[in-house]
């Protein structure tokens, strides 16, 4: 049985996130309100909802212009958004085709990077959505949400 991944781009990279954790994907036209804390985290107000996010575009020095794509997914702490450059589609991969990273890479990325797979010559990085934001980041977001 394969794994279905949502593929998206941010900066120079392509990422894959488990599709079954994804709740919604929107291109943000004109957010009502967007606030930034430290460490590329923030909150965006869309309609009546305040959504915490991590901005991978800023984190990875993306120079792409255009409207960001907000991917909402189930993070262990809350519903979290990822601001990315673009969507690249959905890919079903066999578990055997996922190449795990050496332990030093997993450690250095603080468990965000788990492995990758190749689509032609393109490398798609499989990310652990649960680790994209740390407890420290979460505290910053909570403060911003309360104020």
């Amino acid at each position: 049985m394969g794994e279905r991944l949502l593929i998206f781009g941010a900066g120079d990279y392509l990422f894959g996130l488990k599709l079954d954790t994804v709740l919604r994907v929107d291109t943000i036209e004109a957010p009502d309100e967007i606030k930034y804390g430290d460490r590329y985290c923030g909150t965006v107000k869309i309609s009546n909802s305040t959504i915490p996010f991590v901005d991978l575009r800023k984190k990875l020095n993306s120079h792409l212009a255009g409207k960001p794509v907000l991917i909402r997914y189930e993070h262990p702490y809350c519903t979290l958004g990822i601001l990315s450059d673009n969507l690249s589609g959905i890919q079903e991969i066999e578990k055997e085709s996922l190449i795990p990273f050496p332990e030093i890479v997993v450690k250095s990325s603080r468990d965000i990077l788990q492995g990758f797979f190749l689509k032609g010559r393109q490398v798609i990085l499989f990310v652990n959505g649960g680790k994209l934001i740390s407890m420290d980041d979460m505290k910053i977001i909570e403060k911003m949400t309360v104020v």
Partner: protein
Amino acid sequence: MSEEKYIVFSVKNKLFGIDTMMLINVVNTPEVVRLPFVHSELKGVMLVDTGPVPVFSFADGASGKFAVLVDSQWGLLGILADDVFGIIDKESLKISEDAGSDSIGELSGRRVFRPDLKGVLDTVAGTREKN
């Protein structure tokens, strides 16, 4: 009994030497898959037959024209180098009396350092602060 030899390479004008017992390969113009979210000294991974090998740089701004692949006690590792001087036998590496534990000797008047692989790994893994 084989003589002790070292692969000698430069990173930003600093010479390093690694025992050829550990040497797997020297790759010209290596294809390194760059990675986000990792320590800056971990430049990415190189894909070899056995899987991805982590590649490190010992200095900012090194060209990475070569990658020296070694089989260390911590597994396969790649080290980016600007230039590779070749394989030099121990006799040709002048051992200076004041050479510390981080130095192997001298080559043409230049000190040849022993790369601190454990230090780099600890730094990259976040278990040691960068000096």
